[in-house]
């Protein structure tokens, strides 16, 4: 072990913890002097005079928020063990008084045993709530001689293991090809002080702290319901960071972005001490708002009362909002790192190869015994074998991890055996960070817009646009995946002014609209797909003008050109509509059609996108049997989070054109 790590550890531990729990109280682990009730009472009085229970730090350490249901505040923590007063969940003042009393209550037998067993059982409140202790001690200047404990072995072990030298906010990217990973995820990584001092990159060995729901059902419907209504407990977990790298970077092939935070040793300590405090309790987990991303920001705030992170968030919290909130605090982020996913590493590995090399990579991924040309140098062979192993991993990672005894494992082993036999070392991959995809640079995740337009030969209309999340193919592409659209609750209303009244119609409302395009190349033949469902005003669709629910999905192919500036795609779609005013199959109110959909997206600049789509749908044996439409959108983001959008749509019954001003927030 390196002797250099001790100075850092000592700075951290000694400055903040060891001095806070002084060693000169008598006897190891024994009760100190009897707590004098009058001393505790004096402390409580002083705390109340100073209004400490209203201080930002206290409010945040206890997770008090304005109550949704009554006057006053309520803690978002839902574990009884988190409060020392029975009224603690709703009464910051009572909780503070009870905390002070508990800190100076003598050590019980059980607590002494918990100390002796280092971390098992329930230790003394000072050891359960070290962040509260550190702050109150600083505010009130505790008399060290009156403290009932001399140390907290369990907590100190925890500190030693994590060995915190710095904190990084980790964001794992969106990946629409797995609908699962659509919105991304955030967690914290504590950089080990020992590695920082030694100047090593040993990130995999750092500890990650993750907030997630503890799922107790295998039933998908129950899962959805419980998650939406906060019926799963959310808890913090600690694991070596390599679990997360393997899970997100390899298994799900998502790129990872890391925002290294500029925190003082005291702030790092307070964050970790606070995580220890909440580690044995839980917060009800709500997918939409009180989720992993929200909670991670709340932990950061609890440790750093001068930070304002949650204030920057709206009601629904997406992981990307967390990195934006962090970036809005000037100076808080000192460095940004990029960790390429398995797929990105493979793309980088083949970037410089010619067609002949690529042929061999493909053949090796099919047949591990495929012979390489005798004329090739070992270096050349190693490059092709390395790329083939990466490709094989990308295609088979799930099988490899779950089915150790499968064909895939044997195939990969043979590729690697041939590679190892060459003996020379591969150069470390150096994948440049795609700065244009950095999530903090993306437009706001919500959108609202205002505009107007007209129908050929008819009156004009005004348009209102709103979308809860997140991105469509015409929105400015910086910070988002280039070939993906994920919209949640996009809504368009039209306002029709006429001489005597104003009419409001719902033009289109979708619950969800997803388009996932994958550019076909020789190594990736994944299909592109889309799905949407909602309610829309239909015209000449078995009714003259009526509102009907719809669902639509399609699959097809996409191909990108010019570094993805141009994307062409085609899908075969299936379309369903249902509504009381519709006339459809056998005169029922249900319609079903199918047909081709074509699209082209041209990115002239990250802030200037042209999108053209056309479709033809056939509704056999139904009124208005043949439907076609074409739409063109030109969207220019002239300032951050502001865009103008010119949109035109041609249909059998006429041409609509409108101009919109869109704001992202």
């Amino acid at each position, binding site marked *: *072990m390196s002797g250099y790590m001790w100075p850092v550890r000592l700075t951290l531990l000694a400055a903040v913890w060891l001095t806070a729990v002084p060693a000169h109280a008598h006897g190891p682990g024994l009760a100190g002097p009897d707590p004098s009730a009058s001393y505790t009472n004096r402390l409580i009085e002083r705390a109340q005079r100073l209004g400490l229970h209203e201080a930002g730090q206290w409010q945040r350490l206890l997770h008090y928020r304005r109550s949704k249901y009554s006057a006053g505040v309520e803690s978002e923590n839902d574990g009884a063990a988190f409060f020392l007063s029975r009224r603690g969940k709703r009464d910051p003042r009572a909780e503070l008084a009870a905390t002070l009393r508990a800190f100076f209550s003598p050590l019980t037998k059980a607590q002494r045993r918990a100390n002796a067993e280092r*971390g098992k059982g329930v230790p003394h409140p000072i050891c359960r709530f070290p962040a509260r202790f550190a702050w109150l001690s600083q505010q009130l200047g505790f008399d060290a001689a009156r403290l009932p404990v001399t140390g907290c072995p369990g907590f100190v*072990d*925890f500190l030693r*293991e994590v060995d915190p030298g710095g904190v990084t906010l980790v964001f794992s990217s969106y990946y629409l090809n*797995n*609908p*699962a*990973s659509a919105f991304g995820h955030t967690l914290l990584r504590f950089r080990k002080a020992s*590695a920082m001092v030694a100047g090593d*990159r040993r990130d*995999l*060995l*750092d*500890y990650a702290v993750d907030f*997630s729901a*503890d*799922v107790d*059902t*295998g039933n*998908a*419907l129950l*899962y*959805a*319901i419980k998650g*939406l*209504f906060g019926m799963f407990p959310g808890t913090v977990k*600690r*694991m*070596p960071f*390599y*679990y997360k790298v*393997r899970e997100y970077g*390899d*298994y799900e092939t998502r790129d990872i972005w890391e925002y290294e935070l500029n925190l003082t040793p005291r702030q790092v300590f307070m964050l970790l001490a606070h995580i220890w405090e909440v*580690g*044995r309790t839980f917060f009800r987990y709500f*997918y*939409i708002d009180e989720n992993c991303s929200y909670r991670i920001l709340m932990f950061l705030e609890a440790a750093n009362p001068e930070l304002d992170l949650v204030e920057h968030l709206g*009601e629904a919290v997406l992981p990307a909002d967390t990195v934006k909130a962090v970036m809005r605090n000037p100076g808080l982020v000192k460095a940004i790192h990029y960790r390429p996913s398995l797929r990105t590493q493979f793309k980088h590995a083949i970037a410089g190869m010619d067609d002949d090399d690529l042929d061999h990579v493909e053949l090796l991924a099919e047949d591990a015994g495929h012979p390489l040309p005798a004329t090739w140098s070992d270096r050349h062979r*190693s490059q092709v*074998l390395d790329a083939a*192993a990466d490709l094989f991993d990308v295609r088979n*990672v799930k099988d490899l*991890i*779950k*089915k*150790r*005894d499968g064909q*895939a494992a*044997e*195939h990969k*082993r043979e590729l*690697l*055996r041939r590679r*190892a036999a060459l*003996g020379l*070392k*591969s150069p470390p991959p150096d994948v440049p960070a795609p700065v244009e995809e950095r999530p903090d640079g993306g437009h706001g995740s919500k959108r609202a817009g205002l505009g107007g337009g007209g129908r050929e030969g008819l009156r004009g209309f005004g348009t209102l646009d709103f979308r809860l999340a997140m991105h469509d193919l015409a929105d400015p592409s910086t910070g988002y995946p280039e070939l993906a659209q994920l919209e949640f609750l996009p809504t368009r209303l039209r306002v029709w002014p006429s001489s005597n009244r104003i009419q409001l119609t719902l033009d289109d409302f979708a*619950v969800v609209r997803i388009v996932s395009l994958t550019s076909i190349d020789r190594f990736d033949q994944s299909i592109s797909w889309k799905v949407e469902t909602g309610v829309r005003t239909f015209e000449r669709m078995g009714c003259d003008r009526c509102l009907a629910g719809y669902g639509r999905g399609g699959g097809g192919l996409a191909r990108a050109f010019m570094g993805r500036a141009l994307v062409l795609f085609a899908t075969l779609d299936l379309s369903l509509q249902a509504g009381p005013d519709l006339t459809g199959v056998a005169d029922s109110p249900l319609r079903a059609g199918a047909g081709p959909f074509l699209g082209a997206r041209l990115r002239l600049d990250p802030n200037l996108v042209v999108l053209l789509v056309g479709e033809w749908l056939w509704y056999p044996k139904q009124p208005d049997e043949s439907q076609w439409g074409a739409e063109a959108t030109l969207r220019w983001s002239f300032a951050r989070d502001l865009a103008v959008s010119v949109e035109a749509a041609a249909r059998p019954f006429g041409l609509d054109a409108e101009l919109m001003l869109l704001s992202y927030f």
Partner: protein
Amino acid sequence: MKRAAVAVFSLVVMLVATTVQADPYGTAGCGLGSMIFGDEKGIVQIFAATTNGSSGTQTFGITTGTSNCADSGGGTDSAKAFIETNREAFSKDVARGQGETITNLSALAGCADPRAVGSTLQSSFEAIFPQGDSADTEVSRAVIDTLKAHPELACGLLG
């Protein structure tokens, strides 16, 4: 209302999401399959990923010593856990004679020079991975044995 809308959204995602087969992973050790994906079944696994739920990670508490597989403090046990969990990336790094997993493993094992560790492991590839289906625990034991068999690597934390 918002939450109700999201319920509908969830149902839709459920319909489009493809089912992932989660085969039970029987091997002992700290393999990724058993540690993270072990108990989750197909569709719920996808949901878990969408919404950051987890059902396979109960082993990861916050307190000290919650799981042998969650120890990255250094020494033989944490080196073994590291090898087992990182097996897929690690096997590639061994074949290539260098890489992030080798640097990190060297730190766990206390070895003096990660470059030398990379060369040694590379030349021992067939001993470490005798077969594609070698158990994770066999692989990790073989790695530790290899490192110990080379005193010049000075992997001081392996005991």
